[in-house]
């Protein structure tokens, strides 16, 4: 992915992701990011051509970590969960544009395991939870060649609800 990308999210939703990570600590939390990819929305407020391609997160769809064998260092979302998230998004005229999860007592950087279970296009938000307290939150997109992730700027924006 050559272009830098940006992820717009409200302070309220960003705080909800942090709180979800703290709530499930020391286990990993996970959920879907519902919103709009502005690069594919005609007439969007994407702004001037100089602005990075952006997408906005308008709702969260918290999910249950299905990995009961190693929930401290792994999370898993079943295809049924994915379909439920997609249905919830469709019902509100949105789409699933990414996923979030926590890294308990580890940095908010993607792992090799994250890479091997990712697709490009999706935004992957990671929040680091240290000793139960939320710390850094980052977002990533997998490159086209699957070799590594590129960081995506998280921009806190206020916006009216859908």
């Amino acid at each position, binding site marked *: 992915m050559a272009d830098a990308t940006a992820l717009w999210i409200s302070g309220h939703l960003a705080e909800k992701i942090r709180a979800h990570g703290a709530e499930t600590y020391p286990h*990993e939390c*996970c959920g879907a990011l519902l919103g709009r990819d502005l690069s594919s929305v005609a007439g969007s407020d994407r702004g001037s051509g100089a602005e990075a391609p952006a997408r906005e997160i308008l709702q969260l769809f918290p999910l249950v970590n299905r*990995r009961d064998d*190693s929930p*401290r*260092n*792994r*999370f*898993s*979302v*079943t*295809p049924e*969960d*994915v*379909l439920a998230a997609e249905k919830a998004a469709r019902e509100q005229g949105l*789409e*699933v544009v990414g*996923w979030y*999860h926590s*890294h*308990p*007592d*580890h*940095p908010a*950087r*993607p*792992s*090799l*395991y*994250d*890479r*091997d*279970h*990712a*697709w*490009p*296009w*999706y935004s*992957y938000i*990671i929040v680091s939870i240290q000793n139960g307290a939320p710390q850094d939150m980052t977002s*990533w997109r997998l*490159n*086209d*060649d*699957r070799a*590594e*992730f*590129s*960081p995506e700027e998280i921009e806190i924006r206020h916006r009216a609800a859908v």
Partner: protein
Amino acid sequence: MPVKVMIPSPLRPYAGKRDSAEFNARTVGEALGHLTTEFGDLRKHLFTEDGKLRSFVNVYVNDEDIRYLAKENTPTKDGDTISIIPSIAGGVPTMELAS
């Protein structure tokens, strides 16, 4: 009437932005083979380097998961719809991987 393969949003950029494609195919494997031949950039996001379907990629014929049928040898008939649904997974770093 051929088999219809639904292409999920994340993979549409590798499939000419199409949300579906139709192929004449007798099995799921054949349909996915046609799909990744027509759209070569899709292949690495569906299959590993040794040609196996990636572990987090789930394929359904109509509403049936092919893992509980005959996997990629699952037969298809005209009018069937094949869906590609990911399982989302991740975890803490054992190795950091970012540019």
